[in-house]
């Protein structure tokens, strides 16, 4: 059996998932990142996307996360997500709502640099929606 590490997915409201995992894929800003045990310490911010986990007992689950960080150390991965729900509960209405909010935030932003950030965030959301729903 492969080495395992502690995986935790936390949203502001609660600890969503915690346990020993074999492999985790996190949607890092610069591309998806597969993490196995004994990974070098990395801290990365996340883009909207799916976190998929294979737990030590063989269960595989996927969560949609939006905004947050992954804190990766050799023996633990902690995903701090501003918003997280299981993949199965994600609906297209929910995504549409998210996208609308993002658009509004972008239009309200005056600072050009920040506007670009919003734009790229929106692109990521749209891309996710096109590919997964």
């Amino acid at each position, binding site marked *: 059996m492969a080495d395992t590490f502690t995986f935790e997915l936390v949203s*502001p409201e609660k*600890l969503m998932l915690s346990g020993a995992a074999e492999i985790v894929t996190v949607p890092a800003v610069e591309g998806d990142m597969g993490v196995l045990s004994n990974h070098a310490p990395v*801290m990365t911010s996340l883009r909207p996307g799916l976190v998929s986990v294979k737990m030590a007992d063989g269960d595989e689950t996927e969560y949609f996360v939006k905004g947050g*960080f992954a804190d990766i150390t050799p023996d633990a991965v902690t995903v701090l997500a501003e918003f997280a729900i299981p993949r199965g509960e994600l609906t297209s209405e929910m995504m549409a709502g998210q996208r609308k909010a993002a658009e509004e935030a972008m239009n309200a932003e005056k600072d050009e640099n920040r506007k670009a950030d919003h734009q790229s965030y929106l692109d990521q959301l749209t891309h996710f929606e096109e590919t997964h729903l």
Partner: protein
Amino acid sequence: MASLKDLRNRIASVKATQKITKAMQMVAAAKLRRAQSAAEAARPYSQRMDAVMANIANAVGDSAGAPKLLAGTGSDKQHLLIVCTAERGLCGGFNSSIARLARLKARELIASGKQVQILPVGKKGADVLKSEFSDIMMKTVDLREVKHVGYENAADIAKTVLDMFADDRFDVATLFYSEFKSVISQIPTAQQIIPPQIPEMDADAEAGGTIYDYEPDETKILDDLLPRNVAVQIFRALLENSASEQGARMSAMDNATRNAGEMIDKLTLTFNRQRQAKITTELIEIIAGAEAL
């Protein structure tokens, strides 16, 4: 002296009051349980957030390039006090003790020549502070319609605060709320959130001495992390507050129920004495009448 009928009415009304306070106590107990578990469920996130913050802040250090949200604007002339209280009363000293702490702080700052603004969250605290600070109060954040405080509520407040910070309208922000210790003890607390007080890394973590890779890079992550941290701190304060509020209400209502019970006992005793006295007088009258014949 009150007549027997008056006494009977009073006993009935105190009994009715007691029923209400008893019911309120039980409602508060049920809500407290929910609020407490919500506060507990939110704890891992803010703990991890603190750890990440400490980690990154130490990595970036006091370098000149550190963002203002972390290092401060370099002055402390303008202060923002975010005062979180409840939307409803009848919860003992809960609202007034938070308001008192905020008032003392505001007076102290004003006395030392600083500019102060107050952002009240919750109607009750705003009402109390209005009399003294009406000219520096901002619009109250109204959470009356909100049944369960969610992260979105905190994010909204954080957005207001961050927009103000971006416009240079304050240098230091302090958050006032009541920390939930137990049902009988809630501690009004002031916590500085901008610039944040970075928790000291404990010796264990430092000994581990993990050197992180940052993706994209420290400053980018920090830019993202700091505003989020403000929202998380506010969220935590709101949750602590709602648990404290219910705890305070529960013990206040428990006291009220007990007081009503004591009052009923006292009134009943007076009532019985008077009834006895009346019977005795009547008997004496009858006997006296009979003797006279």
